[in-house]
Every structure is written in structure tokens, then in C-alpha cells.
């Protein structure tokens, strides 16, 4: 009666906590939703179309790659959707359709499947695509639009939005804009110092609300932060990477600004501009490409923050988060190598601990 038909029984444990890849991906998508919807509202229908195209291309590329390699489709785990989603959030909201499609293809085909698929890639696929697009098509990739909420007069409707995304007509001057970081970089290069160039543009209130030019999903700091806290609360991510990224960015920025406010943006501007919050909570925390241990994650995050600040302050590009993430991704194996946890009963070097020394401590 109480007999099972199994020939070779599986090893323990015979219970599971219920976590799954699909559930993790779903949590991240839920966390991204507020900032994404805000981006849609802020930048109108073209942003929606771009999002659909980017995500769609990622999923399609994943399916085709896996079919070509004769693998089972992993569409159900939601990882390709997430890659496309993150990429879309980092693109200029009115970018043409081909940018989204090309980016989606690069992210999945080159950034992920060429390395062997889920879990095998060294670099964050969305950031690989973003950087590839940025260095290949710098003009298109830095054409920002001023916020033009969906509900505002003159905002493009569904059809007009489709036309903007598919045909990419030249943007009228009234709509074209510069992001804060881009503006600061341009003015500095013209010899104008920041005290004169920015005026009220660094007002943190404006930045928190996100009503300014920037990538599709980067500007609504408060929505991204809410999503990040949701991820922390659900245990999908831990605090080490986000905090380290923000600290790595804010600490040198604060020092720089204190020493020379005319040439260095304040810490608040750094934290609330560009991909800082998005990057800290959603991109740097990518499991596959970040270190394994808490200490390693602190090193990794701080490295990203610091490098972002360096690129923003002295590099050729106004934004440096994507480059910083990729560079630290490359260092992840090295960080993992040097940041191993201590094994119980052993010293950090791996030798058994001294029993005699402990008997005195008790």
C-alpha cells in the first residue's frame, strides 16, 4: 500500500521554500510598474510604442535563438521581458522604433544567448545593448524630449505617437530638450560654470517628481525608489548593492561639490539624475552579473557609484551608469574570488581554527 513507484529516490531536502525564477522576475516587474506608467504618462504614446517594440524584440529574439540552438523555450521565466523592459526604460522616450528593436536584439542575442543563455552572461544584457547603441548612434541616443504629459494639449495621440516612433520625424525645437547631466556637461565645456548655467534646474523637488527631460523610466526618482523598497521588502534584492552604489556616487559628489561648486554638481543632483536610482536598485542588482557575497556586493556597488561619478565628472559622456555597470560586471569574477565567506570552523585562509585558543574565551 504505502509504496512508491520510484526506482532511484531523490536526495534531501524533500521540501522547498517555494521560490522560483518566474516569481522573482514577476516581483521585479511589479516593482518597475509605477516608474514605467509614470514614464508613459510623462512622455506620451511614443514612449509606449517604444516600450512595446523593445520588449517584443527581446522576447522574439529569445525564442528564435533558443529555437536555433534547439533548446527548450524559457519564455515562461519572464527574464527576456525584464531585459527588454529595463532597456526601454534607459532609452530616450521618443527614440525611433529601430533603436528599440536593434537594442532588444543586441541585448538578447549578443548580451545573453551568445554566452549560453540565462545565468551564463558576464555582462548585464540591457546595459550591453544600451552602451552599444550609445556608442554607435550617439545623436539619436541623446535626443531628449521635454516632458509632455499624455493628458496635456498638443501631446501626440496613439496614431501620431506611432508615426513618431516608426518614422522618427525631426523633433520640433519646442519639444527637444537636454537632460540635466547633458546640459551641465555642455555648459562646462563651453566654459560656463555650473553656478550660472544651472540656476534652479537642480531643484531637488523637480527631480524627485521627475518632470524633466531624460530617459523613459529614469526620471521619476520617487517611483523608482518605491519600487526598490518593494524589492527589498519582498527579499528579491538586499540592501548591499543599492546602498553601496548610491554611497559610491554621493560621497565623492558631495566632496567635489564642497570643494568646487562651480565645476561639480551637488550630490542630490547626481542621485536624482540619469540612471542613478534605476541603476542602483534594478540594474546593478542583476543576480547573474553581480558578486555572491555581501561584502563583494558592497565593493561592487561602491565601484559602480564611484565610476559613475568619475565618468559624469570627467568623462566624455554626460552619463556613466551603463559604462560603470559593465566595467564592474567584468570585475565580478575577481571580486568573487577575493570576497569568499569564512567557512564555519575555518579561518579566512581555510585552515581549521584553533580549538585550544577558544577554550580560554568561554
Amino acid at each position, binding site marked *: *500500500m*504505502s*509504496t*512508491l513507484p*520510484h*526506482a532511484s*529516490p*531523490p*536526495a*534531501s*531536502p*524533500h*521540501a*522547498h*521554500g*517555494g*521560490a*522560483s*525564477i518566474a*516569481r*522573482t522576475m514577476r516581483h521585479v516587474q511589479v516593482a518597475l510598474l509605477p516608474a514605467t506608467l509614470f514614464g508613459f504618462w510623462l512622455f506620451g504614446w511614443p514612449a509606449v510604442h517604444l516600450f512595446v517594440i523593445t520588449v517584443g524584440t527581446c522576447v522574439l529574439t529569445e525564442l528564435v535563438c533558443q529555437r536555433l540552438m534547439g533548446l527548450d523555450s*524559457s519564455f515562461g*521565466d519572464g*527574464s527576456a521581458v525584464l531585459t527588454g523592459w529595463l532597456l526601454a526604460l534607459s532609452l530616450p522616450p521618443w527614440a525611433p522604433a529601430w533603436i528599440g528593436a536593434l537594442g532588444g536584439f543586441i541585448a538578447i542575442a549578443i548580451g545573453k544567448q551568445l554566452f549560453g*543563455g*540565462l*545565468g*551564463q552572461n558576464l555582462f548585464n544584457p540591457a546595459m550591453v545593448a544600451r552602451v552599444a547603441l550609445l556608442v554607435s548612434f550617439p545623436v539619436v541616443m541623446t535626443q531628449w524630449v521635454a516632458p509632455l504629459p499624455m493628458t496635456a494639449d498638443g501631446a501626440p495621440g496613439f496614431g501620431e505617437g506611432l508615426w513618431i516612433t516608426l518614422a522618427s520625424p525631426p523633433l520640433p525645437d519646442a519639444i527637444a530638450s537636454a537632460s540635466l547631466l547633458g546640459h551641465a556637461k555642455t555648459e562646462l565645456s563651453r566654459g560656463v560654470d555650473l553656478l550660472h548655467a544651472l540656476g534652479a534646474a537642480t531643484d531637488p523637488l523637480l527631480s524627485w517628481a521627475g518632470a524633466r527631460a531624460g530617459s523613459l523610466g529614469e526620471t521619476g526618482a520617487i517611483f523608482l525608489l518605491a519600487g526598490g523598497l518593494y524589492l527589498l521588502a519582498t527579499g528579491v534584492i*538586499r540592501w548591499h548593492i543599492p546602498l553601496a552604489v548610491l554611497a559610491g556616487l554621493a560621497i565623492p559628489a558631495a566632496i567635489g561639490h564642497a570643494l568646487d561648486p562651480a565645476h561639480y554638481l551637488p550630490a542630490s543632483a547626481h542621485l536624482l539624475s540619469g540612471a542613478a536610482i534605476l541603476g542602483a536598485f534594478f540594474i546593478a542588482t542583476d*543576480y*547573474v*552579473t*553581480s*558578486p*555572491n*557575497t555581501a561584502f563583494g556586493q558592497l565593493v561592487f556597488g561602491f565601484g559602480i557609484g564611484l565610476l559613475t561619478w568619475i565618468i559624469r565628472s570627467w568623462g566624455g559622456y554626460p552619463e556613466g551608469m551603463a559604462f560603470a555597470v559593465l566595467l564592474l560586471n567584468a570585475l565580478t569574477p575577481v571580486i*568573487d574570488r577575493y570576497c*569568499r*565567506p*569564512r*567557512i*564555519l*570552523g*575555518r579561518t579566512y585562509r581555510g585552515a*581549521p*581554527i*584553533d*580549538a585550544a585558543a*577558544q*577554550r580560554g*574565551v*568561554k
Partner: protein
Amino acid sequence: MGFIDRFLRTRKFSRGIHPEDHKRPAADAPLRKMPLPERLYVPLLQHVGAPARPAVAVGDTVSKGQRIGEPQGAISAAIHAPTSGRIVAIGDIVAPHPSGLPVAAITIESDGRDEWTPLTPCADPFALDAAEIGRRVSAAGVVGLGGAAFPSAVKLSGGRDANVDVLIINGGECEPFLSCDDRLMRDRAADAIDGIAIMLHATGAREARIGIEDNKPEAIAAMRAAAAGHAKIRVEPVPTRYPMGSEKHLVLALTGLEVPANGRPADVGVVVHNVATAAAVRDAVRFGRPLLSRLVTVNGVCVREPGNVEVLIGTLADAVLEFCGGVRADRGAPARLLLGGPMTGMQVPTLHVPVIKGSGGILVLDRDEVGVRTPGPCIRCSTCVRACPVGLLPLEIARRVRAGDLDAAVKFGLKDCIACGCCAYDCPSHIPLVQYFHHAKGELAARDRHKLRSEATKTLAQARAERLEREAREKAETAARRKAAPDAQPAPAPRPAVATPPAGESA
């Protein structure tokens, strides 16, 4: 320094996991005693070490508590008849083991009278010396009842030599579903405390600390009440954190001491015994009563009346399950039959196997409770790293094992793995990590055996080559001598040298 160091080390045990415990309502159900079964199947190997040698023959009649298996070797345990009756068979039965392979056992047909063999009680155990207590415990066949089943006498009588100062009693019972130790502490607290006092006396330890997970308030209260009169025995609640019942982790949580890798608790002056073992030691020393029964948790959503049952060793698990109302029909086919807990217990192909001294649980789980699905790829989420109570990188070890690089896996700490299952429990990709580690450890053992054997073969071959060479040389010399002096008497033939195999190897 000492305090901070101790705090930091105690804090280390924030790792591990917190599995859903499923202990109630079985834990709260009153203890039941199983009626005498018709036949008992008593395996000769129920402990770590060498199997016992049968001391009876087929056809013999035995009384309850009579010794039917003699221990063999330094680490072994005696086996006793759980009831009176007739020996009907000595031979192989299906082992309570995942393989379902045969194991030698003595089958007793009960005569229904349950008559005891004469016992030798002892009025004052505290007048006995450690060696005598060890002898009585050994004679009673007491082994660790927490699951590992290490012969208890070895740890008890070794206590004074090892200079033990703290006796730790494991009442952690961190395995989900299991509550037999909880039940024992609630219902037999006085016996357990008496046993602990005897163990304190035997080991010469300064004090005893009873670690009980704080999800068992009734057990904590009962043990506290029973220990009230003993200055040297303290009950210490520990956080409910799997694997708190692991020896090294309990020692860490209670004393802040860390047992060195490859070492034993005795190295830091600690000895650990399970709380049920303490009760068994008391029975053995005070009354001369051998270990004939144990508490078994019967649990799982498929069981009709889950609870704890006092079961004679050798009773078929199937019969115990039937006693608990059998399997519920409305739950569909059971997905897993387990002996022990779900984290470290073993799946058995059938419950037609006897309960042995180490069996703490009989579980019948359905698909939802098992919850294990088809494995996906590792996404390096490092959940396993966070979960591992030993501080390993399970994902890195698994990667090396998968690539066949066992040396690298060992460098990452494969041999330090305690197979607690925390990593696999939390893995979102459902990768059977523990299975990888078991496999790798098996491969390593096989490789070591092979290496030993090939070294022995090499030594033998070398010895043979040397012998042949020497013989040839001697023959040549004899021939040369004969040639030089053809009239001389022929020399006696040289005795061939005998190659002796190297010590310790019987190849």
C-alpha cells in the same frame, strides 16, 4: 574582547533558513502507544559503526529485553529483543534505506505475553564511576536518538579523557514536521533531566545546557520545571532557525564556541547528546532497561491522524502508519514516503521497513508539501550563499561538480558541507544542490579507494619485479659458479623471496 568576540560568533548563526514548520497539530496530539505487533524485524545494524553479531538462533525463545545481537568492534551497539517470543528468521529484509537493499535482521514472532528478562537496576547511579555508567549504557544498546545513531557509551565514557566542561543537550528539533523530541520533553521531562544529571556525572562536565528552539514553549516550560532543583542544569531557548539541531550550530548558539573543521565538539570542551538519548540513558543506568522503543512522529498532510507514537524497535513503519489511521484517500497519491524529517531524512521506496533506533519520523507528503519542481539554470542569485549555515558557496561548488572538477569543489569547501539542505530549499531554480554534493562526495570516496588500491598494486608489482630480478641474478651467479668449478657439488637452489603486502591493505 571575549564578549565582543562571542557576540560576533553567535551572530554568525543568522544564516540558515526558516522553513515552514508543520509541527502542529501533530505536536499537540497526546502521545499514543502502539499495541504489540505480531512480528518484529530487528536489523543488526541500526547505528553508526559495525553491525552487531546475532546471539540467538532460529527457533530460540527470547524474553523482552534479552540481548539478541552482540556489538562488534570499538564502535557498535548491542541489539535486544523488543518483546518476548520466538526467533523465526535471521536473514535479509528490506532495509530502512533509500536503496531498499537487503539488511540482516532478526525476526521475532511475538508470544503476546511481553515478558521481561530479569534486569539489574541500580539504586544510586551517582555512586557509579564513568566507566561503569558507560558499560551499562553500552549494554543497553543506547545510541544517539537524534538521527545520527552514534553509540552513546563511546561519547559518555570518553568525556573525562576529553576534559569536557559543558554538556549540551540537543532539544533543538529544527526539522519541520517532527515533534517526537518536543513530545518527550513535555511528557517525560523529569526522566530526561534525571538522565542529563547522570550524563553530567559521567562526563565530569561543569554544567549542562539544554538548547530548545523557541517555537516549543511547552517543552521549555516543562523542562524548566523539571530542572528547577538542579543547579548545574540550565534550559536555554535558542532561536528557531534551521539547522539549529546541527551539533556545531547548537554549540555555536549556546556557547559561542566554534568547533574546528574536521574536529569534534570535544575539541572545544563540549559534548552534545540528544534529549531523548538522555531519557534512554536514565532507563539504562537506573533500571538496566535496554533501548527497546522510541517516539516516532507520524506526519504529513496525507496521514489521517498525525501524531507521536511510542513504537517498539522493529515494528514495520507501514503498521505504525496504519495505527495512525493510514493514508487519506482524498489527498491523491502520496508524493513521498520519508523516514526522518524532510530536510535531512531519506526517501524510501516502501514503508514495509522496520522502525529503527534512529528513526524519528514517518512522513507521507503530498506534491504540494514536497514542492520540488524541474530544475532550471542557476541565475547566480546567491540565495544559497545566504542560506548556507556553514559559509559555503553552494553555487560555485555545484558548478565545479557539474564540470567534473572535484578538486576545485573541495577547495570551495565540499567536505565542509553538512548536507542540511538549506541551499536547495531556498533555490529559486530548484537545483538539487545536495544531490550534487552527495554525488561528489561519493565520487571522492571512490577515487580515494581506487588510489589506495592502485598504490597497493604498484607496490606489489614492484616487489615482484625486484624478486624476479634477484632470482634471475642468483640463477646467473649459480650458473657462473658452476661453470667456474664444474666438479663442485651443485649449490642448493635459492629460496624465492616472499613479497609481503604493505600493512593495512588486503589487496
